Every structure is written in C-alpha cells, then in structure tokens.
C-alpha cells in the first residue's frame, strides 16, 4: 500500500485531532487578519446607523445556546450600537432559550462604560417580554395585538404596565425589527409575516447554515441587512468598531478552514490515485 492508499483509509479520529488543534492553538495567540466587510454586513450596520435617535426597536431572539458562538457576538454589538443611538429596545423570543440569550447579551452591553452615564432603566429604555410558544403564528398575531400576545414580561410584570410598551399595539408602533435566528421559526417567517404583511423594516443575523436561504430576501429588499455566521459577526464588529469575540475567533476559524481545505485536497488526490490503481 502506498502513501495515498493509506491516506484514503486514514482514521477519522486523526482528522478530528487536527481540527481540534487547529481551533484550540490559535486561541492562545492574537491573530490579526483583514476582515473585508460584505455588502450585506455593511447594509446591516448602516440600517442601524441611519435610525433616528430614540427609535423603538423590536428584537427577536430565535436561537438557543448551541448557536451562541455565532449569534451572541452579533447581538451584543447590536445592543451597543442601538444604545449609542438612544434607541428603546423591546426583546422577545420565539425559542425558549432566546430570552435568556438576550439577557446575557443585554448584561454584557450594559457593562460597557459608555452607557454608565445614560442610566438605562429596565422597562423604560429596554424590556424583555420573554418566550411565547406558537412559532410563526405568534409573529402573525403580533400584527394585530402585541401586548395580548405577550401579556407578561420575562420577569412576570404585566407588559402594559411597562412605560416602554405604552401605546404599543403592533409592529407599526416599532420603527425597526431585528431578528437573530438559527432555524425555525426564524428570519424567513419574520419576512413572511412581519415585513411583507405590515411593511416593517427589518435586518437579521443568521447562523452561517441558515444565511444562504435568506440572501434572496436581501437581494429583493425585504431584508435591509444580513449577517452570516461568525464571519458576519466579525464584519459587523469591524465596521462598527466594536471588537469582540467575532473578530477574536476568526483566527481559529481561518486556520481550521485551511486544515479542512488541505484534507479535502489530499483526500481527493488519494481517492483518484486509488481509483486509478484499481
């Protein structure tokens, strides 16, 4: 058996070990690499930047902890940019752990010393209305009665008692909608039932798996901006000048991709050499 035939039969656990090292070792070093910003990422940033100060924004957290390495950095940077513009934020979740992820992102954003003087208050400047079961039916129902769909917030307070929710009936009372999603229900459902029905303006942050499905919506103008995966988070952190985990993880991401490409090339060579020998 020559080298290529042995390589074709390589134990996958050796590949796993290489990938693990490719991801773990770069975390110990600061790898600086240029992060070119895609048109979708630039549009995401500009959509928020062009919001008038004090705009009321609805954010939907439709993901769970497994997707947090990709979506959490986006969410934290988004909160910071929104707080910089003194926007009022209302958070909901269509996945059970979504509101919990939002709490973590809010806590991280509120620790930023830039916002210490603003004395941001729960219920006045931001609120978390929690999770509601029903998936896309919930998005549909919010078109007519948002407070009725989320009668109490994440902490058990009556939604209508929160100052930030005064006068809010449906999407038309929000200036903007932002969705972070990793599956169903997610961005696609929000475009169908929120953007197309009520004419809301929306941007979205997706996992890299989901993003290709939603590029057509960006192309057609139904989405005003789209971030895709960790690269999208890194792009957004770059363009908004808020370095965070998105940028710091890209080094490990790049090294692992090189290792994957190397194995794909070597594996294909091994495959064709073995086939030719037969």
């Amino acid at each position, binding site marked *: 058996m020559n080298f290529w035939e042995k390589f074709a039969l390589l134990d996958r656990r050796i590949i796993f070990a290489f990938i693990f090292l490719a991801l773990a070792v770069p975390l110990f070093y600061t790898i600086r690499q240029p992060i070119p910003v895609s048109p979708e990422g630039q549009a995401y940033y500009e959509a928020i930047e062009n919001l008038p100060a004090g705009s009321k924004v609805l954010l939907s957290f439709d993901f769970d902890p497994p997707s947090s390495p990709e979506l959490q950095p986006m969410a934290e940077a988004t909160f910071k940019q929104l707080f910089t513009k003194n926007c009022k934020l209302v958070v909901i979740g269509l996945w059970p752990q979504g509101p919990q992820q939002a709490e973590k992102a809010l806590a991280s954003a509120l620790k930023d010393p830039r916002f210490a003087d603003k004395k941001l208050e729960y219920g006045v400047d931001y609120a978390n209305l929690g999770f509601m079961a029903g998936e896309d039916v919930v998005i549909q129902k919010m078109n007519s009665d948002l407070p009725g769909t989320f009668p109490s917030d994440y902490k058990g307070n009556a939604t209508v008692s929160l100052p930030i929710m005064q006068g809010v009936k449906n999407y038309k009372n929000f200036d903007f909608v932002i969705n972070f999603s990793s599956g169903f229900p997610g961005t696609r459902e929000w475009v169908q039932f929120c953007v197309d029905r009520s004419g809301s303006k929306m941007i979205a942050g997706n*996992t890299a*798996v989901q993003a290709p499905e939603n590029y057509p919506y960006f192309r057609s103008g139904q989405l005003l901006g789209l971030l895709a995966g960790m690269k999208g988070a890194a792009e957004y952190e770059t363009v908004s000048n808020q370095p965070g985990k998105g940028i710091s993880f890209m080094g490990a991401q790049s090294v692992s991709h090189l290792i994957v490409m190397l194995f794909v090339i070597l594996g294909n060579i091994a495959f064709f050499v073995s086939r030719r020998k037969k």
Partner: protein
Amino acid sequence: MRKPLLLGALVFLFLFISTPAQTPPAPVSDLEAIDAPDDAGNQVDLNWKPSPDETRAANPVIGYQILTAPAVDSPFVPIGTASFGATSATAKDGLKNGRPYYFKIRAYALDSSFAESEVAGPVVPQGSWWNTKPAYIRIFIWMALVVAFILYNIFLAGKKELYIRPIGGINAIDEGIGRATEMGRPILYICGLGDAAQAATMAAFSVLGRVAQKTAQYQTKLIVPCYDPIVFSICQDVVKGAYLNAGRPEAYNEKDVFFVAQDQFPYVAAVNGIMLREKPATNFYLGQFYAESLMLAETGFEAGSIQIAGTDQLIQMSFFIVACDFTLIGEELFAASAYLSKEPEQVGSIKGQDWGKVIFAGLSVLGVVSVLLENKIHFFGFFKKLMINE
C-alpha cells in the same frame, strides 16, 4: 454706575428691536380626510396643503400633529405625527371600524407655538372585504390558478393514471428495506424536525406508511424516534394502520415509535446513540431537517447503515448528498411520496404544481422579454408594470 446701566438698557433695546416678533405659524389648508382603502376599517388617509411658514426664516414650521375627535365639539386628541414637508399621512392609532371621526392638523413651529387647521370630517372608516392593491391581486390570481390546477388534476388522477417521471431514489427505498430484512437488523426512520403541517413531514408520513407496511410483511424491526409530539401521534397512527393493512397487527410494537425530545441537539444526541447501539441496516431521513442533518448522516455512516434522505431544506441537501447513499432533492421527496402511494390527492397535487411551474417559468421569460421591449411594444410595458407595481 450710571454708564453700565445705560449700556445695558441700550443693549436690551437693540435686542428687542432687532429680534422679530415670534408669531404662531400659518396653519395647513385644504385638509381632506378620506377612508383608507384596502384596510380593516381602522385607517383614514389625510391630505393637505402644507403651511406656507415651512420656509419662513424665523420660527419656521418643523412638523405636524394629527388630532382626532369623535365629534366636532369633543376634545381633539393627538394620534400621530407627520414630518416637515409632508402633505399626507395615514391616521391609524385607535380608530374603530364604522365610527365617525373628525380630524385637524396642528402645525408646530420651532418655538412650540402652533396653529390648527380647519376640521375635516366626519369620516367613517370602513373595513374592506378585498385588498385591491396590485400585489394582493397577483397573489389572489396565482392562488386561484394553482388551486384550480391542483383540484382539476386530483379529479383527473381519480379517473386515470397520470404520468410522473421515474425518480432515482425510489428504488433505493425498497432495496433498503430488503437489505435490512436480509441482515436481520432494524430500519431507522426519522421524519425530520418539522411540524405536522409542513409538506415535507406529510410526505414523510406517506413514505413511512409504505415502509411500515413492508416491514410488517417482512417482520423487520422499524424504529421511529420522533421530535415533535404531534408528529409522534401521527407516526403512531400511520405505523399502526400500516401493520393493520399488512394483516399483522400483532407485530406492531408501540415502543418502536416514540417521542424523544423537542429540542434539536438533545434529539440528535439520542438518535446518534440509537444508531450506534442498534446498528440499523437502513436509515431513512425524510422530512424537514436543520443543522443536525450532517450529524445524523455522519453517525449513520459510521454505524454502517445505508442511508436514504429527502428534504426540502435546500441547504441541508448538501450534507445528505455527501453522506447518504441516495438522496431525494427538494420536491423529489413529494414526487416520490406521490409515486409510491399513487393517491389521487398526491399525484394530482404534483401535476397541478407542474402546471404552476409552467406559468412561473412563462412569467419569468415574459418578464425578461418585457424589460427588453417595454419601450417598444406597449403590451410588454404594461406587463412589466403589472408584475412590479405594489
């Protein structure tokens, strides 16, 4: 002492003379209020001529406020705003269908002084039965066409056999069942992570019925771990019904169809464990899948199973194509379900959709031609506007 006082008085006098008097702005004129069309009866369209004081140098108008009241002599309350330069707005907050409303526009100046327009009204917002916007007319026509095509083809399918082209993965289904029977190992059937209302899940039920009927005949074990509780209920019914139809109700083991967890990765962890412990000969992944697709397919490959997959999630197709032996791409899953079941509803739906695709392709081609010829031939200009206008 006198000199500073005199100087101060002179400065005050100068400022008093040079600062023009702040007069309230002129109101808007020709305010018109009409019931907004194509709504639920809670909106009123307002049009007006803007205040001439938008452009005055001192104390210009900076915006407008919309006021409403149920009667002329009732207090007018604000329900909306319009920005500087606006000549129209839609009043929508708090209006109820069938009740009369009166409207005024308040023009605000920089110094917060304001002037109100004449009252317009009464306007009674009425709900519309039909939405006559071009975008909704298009949807209605399209829906009517596709539903008509499908119903007609279902009718035809009940009368005669309609042709559906052969699909590669269909033979693999029977081969997979045969392989499991020969090896004496079970079949693992996963209906995906979608809910019961999704087309891919419904197609999965259809194929499950056929697979279950065969496993009942050949006495092969069938394991069906479910993600969604409603899908679990339906799978139980489908498998039980299939065993009844095969004449082997006693062979049905209700523990073989079970609910695992309605959480993506716990479900995957459990199914991966089942694969490595039970070592099924054949895995079926038919339905709606998300991020777990590659994990399932990889583990199945490791367990030595042959794998047949079908999903309408185009993004997950790449993993199934790479890791599975046979793949039904997108709509091939629905066609396979129709091909195997031969039910008129399913076959008719596939044929009706095919007619719809012809229309879709035709509209696309016509649209491209319209862009080329819109300025030369009137029809194409009209067609382009018909397809694009909202």
